[in-house]
């Protein structure tokens, strides 16, 4: 089984230096695009590979690039940004790539920047990833020294600057337009779209924001072709995917597997199944803002289409397991606390609705809930849903709630009827 993105990552070992990375074929894609391919050809190759964004939304990467103005009339300044602000609860896949092989990310960023003819690029890194910051800083310096960054890269006439920017903590920074505001030194509120960042992004210039894992796929697509990339997958969505599992399983972790690997294989063959004494009840397939899936879904392939057809989203592909000894109300309350805290407060449904949801869940968990609270929760899943808020934060927050009300309804009602938590565990964030 091919594992292009993680083949040179050994967790206990330092990441490859530039020389070591070159020795295993690193930066070959940069030489190839500069010598053989026009920016449009790179865009078309990536479009044909059917690479879809690995940050959660799953938009076709080449198509996303194609909206950037090109040619002699395009603005002289364009930007490429690597979204390394990994902060979706339960998600730890980009950390693996950032700490394990920073040169692969830089190589992918050069490919993406060349494809849209950007001359300035940023890695927007989460503050908490201290080791990644150290490794990326070193790798960028090495890449400049070797002539892969800076002026006249490899004698091609193409110029690209790269800077590392570390954030100061806020989930909103992962949303691409909020990320651009953060990079500009502003509050990370999302921006109205249109205009889309491809046309008017950072400082009003055309900008592409791509997820770390997406960018790390690019060198391999350039080197091996679109058909090879599609062939890595076991489903209609191309490539491999970093899948992760956390919670009460025997061996939690992150593995690069073919797109379309079933949930059951990931849970049983890689995560080792449930720990002794714990039973599986459900899972969030791709981070905190995805709908629950349950036992009946375990044989679904993990790809964008299959998970969506089951009423959820593949999201980041890192699953969080709900076991039988964890209270579903507490579990969902924990998620809603996170979203309420991280709401930027810009639009009313999100700013006011999420804290209300959080209070209702706490009341239910404490045994103080009323039957009509179930209706209030359902009301929120609709009014904080898609189309009613400025960005995707609140609709994302409603996904685990609406599916919990569907799959674990009896547990919620038992709290209300019996006036206490059947697990006797009331989660209170600030105590």
């Amino acid at each position, binding site marked *: 089984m091919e594992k292009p993105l993680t083949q040179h990552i050994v967790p206990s070992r330092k990441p490859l230096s530039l020389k070591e990375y070159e020795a295993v074929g690193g930066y070959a894609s940069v030489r190839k695009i500069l010598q053989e391919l026009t920016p449009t050809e790179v865009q078309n190759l990536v479009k044909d590979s059917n690479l879809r964004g690995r940050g959660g939304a799953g938009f076709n990467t080449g198509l996303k690039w194609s909206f950037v103005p090109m040619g002699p009339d395009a603005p002289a300044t364009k930007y490429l940004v690597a979204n390394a602000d990994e902060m979706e609860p339960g998600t*730890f896949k980009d950390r693996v790539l950032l700490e394990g092989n920073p040169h692969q990310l830089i190589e992918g960023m050069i490919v993406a920047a060349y494809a849209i003819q950007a001359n300035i690029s940023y890695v927007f890194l989460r503050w908490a990833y*201290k080791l990644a910051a150290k490794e990326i800083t070193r790798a960028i310096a090495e890449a400049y020294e070797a002539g892969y960054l800076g002026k006249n890269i490899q004698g091609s006439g193409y110029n690209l600057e790269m800077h590392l920017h570390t954030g100061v903590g806020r989930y909103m920074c992962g949303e691409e337009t909020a990320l651009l505001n953060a990079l500009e030194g502003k509050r990370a509120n999302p921006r109205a779209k249109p205009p889309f960042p491809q046309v008017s992004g950072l400082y009003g210039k055309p900008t592409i924001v791509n997820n770390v894992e997406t960018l790390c796929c690019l060198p391999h697509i350039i080197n091996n072709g679109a058909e090879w990339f599609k062939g890595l997958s076991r489903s209609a969505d191309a490539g491999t995917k970093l899948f992760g599992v956390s919670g009460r399983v025997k061996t939690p972790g992150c593995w690069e597997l073919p797109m379309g690997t079933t949930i059951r294989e990931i849970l049983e063959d890689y995560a080792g199944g449930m720990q002794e004494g714990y039973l599986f009840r459900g899972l*969030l397939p791709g981070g905190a803002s995805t709908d629950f899936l349950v036992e009946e879904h375990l044989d679904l392939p993990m790809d964008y289409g299959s998970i969506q057809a089951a009423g959820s989203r593949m999201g980041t592909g*890192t699953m*969080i397991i709900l076991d039988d000894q964890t209270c579903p109300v507490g*579990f969902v309350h*924990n998620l809603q606390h996170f979203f309420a805290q991280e709401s930027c407060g810009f639009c009313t449904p999100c700013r006011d609705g999420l804290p209300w949801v959080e209070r209702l869940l706490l009341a239910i968990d404490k045994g103080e809930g009323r039957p009509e609270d179930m209706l209030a929760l359902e009301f929120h899943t609709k009014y904080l849903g898609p189309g009613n808020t400025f960005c995707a934060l609140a609709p994302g927050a409603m996904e685990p709630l609406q599916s919990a009300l569907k799959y674990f309804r009896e547990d919620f009602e038992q709290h209300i009827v019996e006036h206490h938590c059947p697990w006797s565990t009331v989660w209170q964030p600030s105590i």
Partner: protein
Amino acid sequence: MLTTEEKHQIEHEISLVPTRKAACIEALKIVQQNRGWISDSSLAEVAEFVDMSPAELDSVATFYNLIFRRPVGRHVILLCDSISCYVMGYETIRDHLYSTLGIKYGETTEDGRFTLLPNACLGTCDCAPALMIDNDLYRNLTVEQLEEILNKYT
């Protein structure tokens, strides 16, 4: 007053962006690195240096979780309280820190050694529960390890 070194570092950040204002978060990070937190007077000094009003800069400073607008101890403990750590029982770690340090979230020990804060997902969910102290990440935590970990910080 911003020190010469602080001004020098902030000017370098300003040189990388189109406007002075655009470097304001970097400027806050530099000052916080030196002084531990951002006091009202630090905020005013930075604001003037990057051509912003103190109110506008405060709207940025208070937006971000890791810009401290209140004094903190010499070491800041950031305990992950998000979903995977919740499932894996971070609450026992929290309760042990409360009793060992005699403080709760948002408080600083009397000797000024530690401030304890809850923190959103640290992105190491396969090794939950987890916390960070300053720049150091600790994972797969058990209550038994805490004393040894805390002893590293004076």
